[in-house]
């Protein structure tokens, strides 16, 4: 019996407090000019500790912000790094294209003015050994390539086609010891005086022009061109330039080092001479001893 009465008393007390609180809310919810002394005292008591906690909270917030900004910066850094890598790759590609474009422009100009029917080809592999000078191109007999066709670039004679397959061919370079080219000095225009250009055993980057009669007039700066004798290479194709005076004139024949016009280490695109342009004889064939096809 005591419990329900106690409950009822509690409930009544609760209702009284609720009413009191409603009154308090009503009084304090409007504009108040100043706080009550109880509020003042409580706030004075809590304020310093609250301030300390607030600083701790701020420190935590700063720490969090720092961690977040570090994470963001790291992510941004990674993104920018990726962008740099991408742009760097693009730049390399762009430079490559620019160089290729430059090469193609010069090759195109050469192809149009050479007076020969030329077939452009790309070097797809080269002999890695130092013993032979051969390379493979991406054109074969299906493209009209035949054995013993001359191979040139805008810089001069490269060599000749040695073997042909359907879609590729092998080129033997003029630096290969197995190949010698009949040549003459362009300046003298003397068809009677010819020699052969061969590989130079002493210096693989140079050629040597030999088997010339001792009376041949030859001097540094002279351009050496194909003579057209032998029937493989059309006459007048530029081979290289004489760099030194012939050392010995006492022998039966004269030899002189020749710097090739072509840089064989950097060959990427070449031309195969299919024949004279429009079926007419090439510039060298039409008039033996005429101007060579020069770079």
């Amino acid at each position, binding site marked *: 019996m005591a419990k329900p009465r106690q409950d009822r008393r509690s409930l009544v007390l*609760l209702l009284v407090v609720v009413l009191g*609180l409603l009154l*308090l*809310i009503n009084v*304090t*919810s409007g504009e108040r000019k100043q706080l009550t002394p109880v509020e003042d005292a409580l706030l004075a008591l809590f304020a310093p500790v609250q301030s300390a906690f607030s600083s701790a909270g*701020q420190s935590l*917030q700063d720490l969090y912000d720092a961690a977040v900004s570090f994470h963001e910066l790291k992510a941004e850094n990674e993104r920018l790094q990726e962008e740099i890598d991408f742009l760097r790759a693009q730049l390399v590609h762009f430079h490559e294209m620019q160089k290729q474009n430059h090469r193609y422009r010069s090759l195109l100009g050469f192809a149009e003015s050479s007076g020969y029917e030329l077939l452009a080809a790309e070097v797809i592999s080269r002999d890695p050994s130092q013993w032979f000078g051969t390379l493979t191109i991406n054109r074969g007999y299906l493209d009209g390539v035949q054995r013993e066709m001359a191979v040139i670039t805008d810089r001069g004679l490269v060599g000749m086609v040695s073997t042909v397959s359907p879609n590729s061919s092998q080129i033997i370079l003029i630096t290969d010891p197995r190949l010698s080219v009949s040549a003459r000095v362009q300046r003298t225009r003397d068809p009677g005086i010819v020699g052969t250009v061969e590989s130079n055993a002493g210096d693989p980057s140079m050629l040597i022009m030999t088997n010339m009669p001792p009376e041949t007039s030859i001097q540094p700066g002279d351009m050496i061109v194909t003579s057209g004798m032998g029937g493989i290479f059309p006459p007048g194709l530029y081979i290289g330039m004489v760099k030194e005076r012939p050392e010995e004139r006492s022998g039966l024949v004269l030899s002189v080092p020749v710097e090739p016009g072509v840089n064989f280490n950097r060959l990427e695109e070449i031309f195969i001479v299919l024949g004279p342009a429009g079926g007419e004889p090439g510039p060298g064939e039409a008039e033996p001893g005429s101007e060579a096809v020069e770079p």
Partner: protein
Amino acid sequence: MIFPVIVALCFVLSLLLEGSVLSFFIMEKALPDIILVLVVSLGFILGERKGALLGLGFGFLQDVIFGSALGFFAMAKMLLGYGAGLLGRELYQDQLAAPVLLVFAGTLTHELILHLLVNQFIGVGLPVEWSLSRLFIPKALYNMIISLFIYPLLYRLYCKQQEISLKSGARRRRY
């Protein structure tokens, strides 16, 4: 004697934390109300009178420290403590499900009481549907999670205190 001291410390610490460090743990727009969790948990354990008294006292402190008008938090928390105490009589106190769900329901009730009071006396208030989905329910979930840790701790402390009281009472009778 140690139980009331720990409870008082918990309340004071919660008051201090709520205004500072806890704002760091804001979820959506809702902040946890540890005082509410304490009032509901202790009301559930100690009964409606003590629950109401704790709610009134610490709600009033909350009013002084955080509110511009007096009585809002005091009223809401007192009613909550009283209600939790009434339910604590009927439900199992040693099982976690009831007090935790009570904290969830209590938070929603607390917020609705405040919503009504603010609307009535101050005249401003957000639309109740929006508040319910964006503020009240996230806050209730947040409080419910906190109560998973706080309630067992308080209940164990209370049981320990009861054990000690019983032992010391028996010893006194023996002498």
